[in-house]
């Protein structure tokens, strides 16, 4: 796999929007000029069943059509999956795991039994309920993966997402600001978590 390609694996449950989030990420990366892939891996489709989705994002055309076994980043949309699925399998050294959870990073690390790589936690529920009044994990998780992976500039991402939301929610513009707020809150939360971690590393 070419060095300038970022590979991301998403874990979620059917109906939670992990596939949609992967497609949205492909969309926004495409708009910033990248070559992209966003694709789901389907088993028997049913609400609540674990599903996997993938992204490849590159500066060069991508011909690969296999699944991703050694991702740079793994996004877990439902932390209930940590007990049933080996979410860190194949995760590259130097990569990172991003988990939507209300638990602390230390609790997540304990649940992962021996994983020594980077972990980022995002409380997408709190952010989404605060920004939107409802629980939609997609926007926070998208912002989190952009912040952690640096796949594109945050400002550029926000601008493209505003355009996407304006298009997607043309008939309910009242949710555009809430979604934008969710993205910005997530950026701030990731930065703050990073700062906290650096402090604890120093202590």
């Amino acid at each position, binding site marked *: *796999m070419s060095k300038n390609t970022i590979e991301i694996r998403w874990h979620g449950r059917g109906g939670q929007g992990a596939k949609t989030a992967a*497609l949205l990420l*492909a*969309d926004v990366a*495409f708009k910033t000029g990248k*070559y*992209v*892939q*966003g*694709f*789901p*891996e*389907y088993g028997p489709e049913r609400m609540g069943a674990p599903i996997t989705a993938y992204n490849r994002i590159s500066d060069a*055309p*991508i*011909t*690969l*059509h*296999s*699944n991703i*076994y050694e991702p740079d980043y793994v996004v877990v949309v439902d932390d209930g999956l940590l007990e049933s699925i080996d979410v860190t399998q194949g995760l590259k050294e130097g990569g990172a795991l991003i988990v939507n959870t209300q638990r602390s990073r230390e609790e997540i690390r304990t649940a992962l039994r021996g994983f020594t790589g980077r972990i980022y936690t995002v409380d997408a529920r709190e952010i989404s309920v605060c920004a939107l009044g409802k629980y939609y994990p997609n926007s926070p998780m998208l912002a989190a993966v952009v912040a952690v992976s640096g796949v594109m500039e945050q400002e550029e991402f926000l601008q493209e997402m505003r355009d996407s939301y304006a298009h997607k929610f043309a008939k309910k513009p009242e949710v555009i600001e809430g979604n934008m707020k969710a993205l910005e809150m997530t950026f701030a939360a990731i930065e703050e978590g990073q700062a906290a971690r650096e402090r604890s590393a120093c202590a």
Partner: protein
Amino acid sequence: MAIRERLSGNEAVAYAIRQINPDVMPAFPITPSTEIPQYVANYIANGKIDTEFIPVESEHSAMSAAIGASAAGARAVTATSSCGMALMWEELYVAASDRLPVVLALVNRALSGPININADHSDSMGARDSGWIQIYAESNQEAYDNFLQAYPIAEHASVRLPVMICQDGFITSHGVENIQLLEDDKVREFVGEYMPAHYLLHEKEPMAVGPYAVSAYYMETKRAQREAMKNARQVILETAARFESLTGRKYGFFEEYRMEDADYVIVLIGSAAGTCKAAIDEIRSATGQKVGLLKIRVFRPFPEEELANALRDKKAIAVLDRSEMFAATGGPLGAEVRAALYSAGSRAEVVNYFYGLGGRDITVDDFKEVYAKLERLARTHERTDMYTYIGLRER
């Protein structure tokens, strides 16, 4: 100027259908092709095109209605997958023998059973003897490009055969990738208006379509179909040349990837070609080993001579099949490639693999193992089985 977009394979085919604006689309939903009629129905509902959409009660009816529409003189299209195509079975043969240029967007999926919704070529490979032209895609771009070339091939006066445009279920149909689209006016000019020479609604030329053929006529009808299939070869190449001058994208019966100096070659069909190309680039830059790929685009008519020419001087060849036929000779592509090589007097080592059945993934590492085996075979000439497997669990 081409339009830079990102679309799934299903979106790309639906987009092509919108640009072509065919007269009639009867269709019945089945995963993973459902989105195609769904998107087209949206285009129709939104007034983008005036295609007559017929929500039929089964795939048997979908193909029957497409046949009726095409016989009447209309440009007809449908889409299906897997068991949906199986239910069209008898009608596939009727469309071909009636010489009706119906186009079928097939999203390849394993046939039951066991029930499975994923990519596999058993549906179209099972229909390889039905008299349809079959064109396969590696990517969303190719699914789109092939679809645009379907009607000019199908409707050509020397061909008049139905065409199925195949792509791999989920891998391309549901995967979003970058794609270059053509402007609507360029597509309409390229595809042209359908002006059938003979059709049922022609009031001055009463005719019957699909009458009983007694034994005194049946065999000649089949011979005529074979002649049309032979004629299609030239038309496929001419259409590809016209498409290339429009888009710069080159198509033929097959694509050769790093084949000029290759000693060890994989022959396959469909989306796995992209992964194979990545493996080839890695192997060549890491070891310099001369590996290449021949990706079949047109399986019917089968490009026997051209294929044998392209493979003539190769040391070892692996032919990969994504469908079973339970023959002692292996899979359908393996059998045809071996026959072509035998006719051409080739002495290359050939090994036939089954891979990817029911959506089993195939990776760069899998391809590296195949190339390693080809290198060993060419060196040792060891005896091999007629067929073997990639990625099969032995226990």
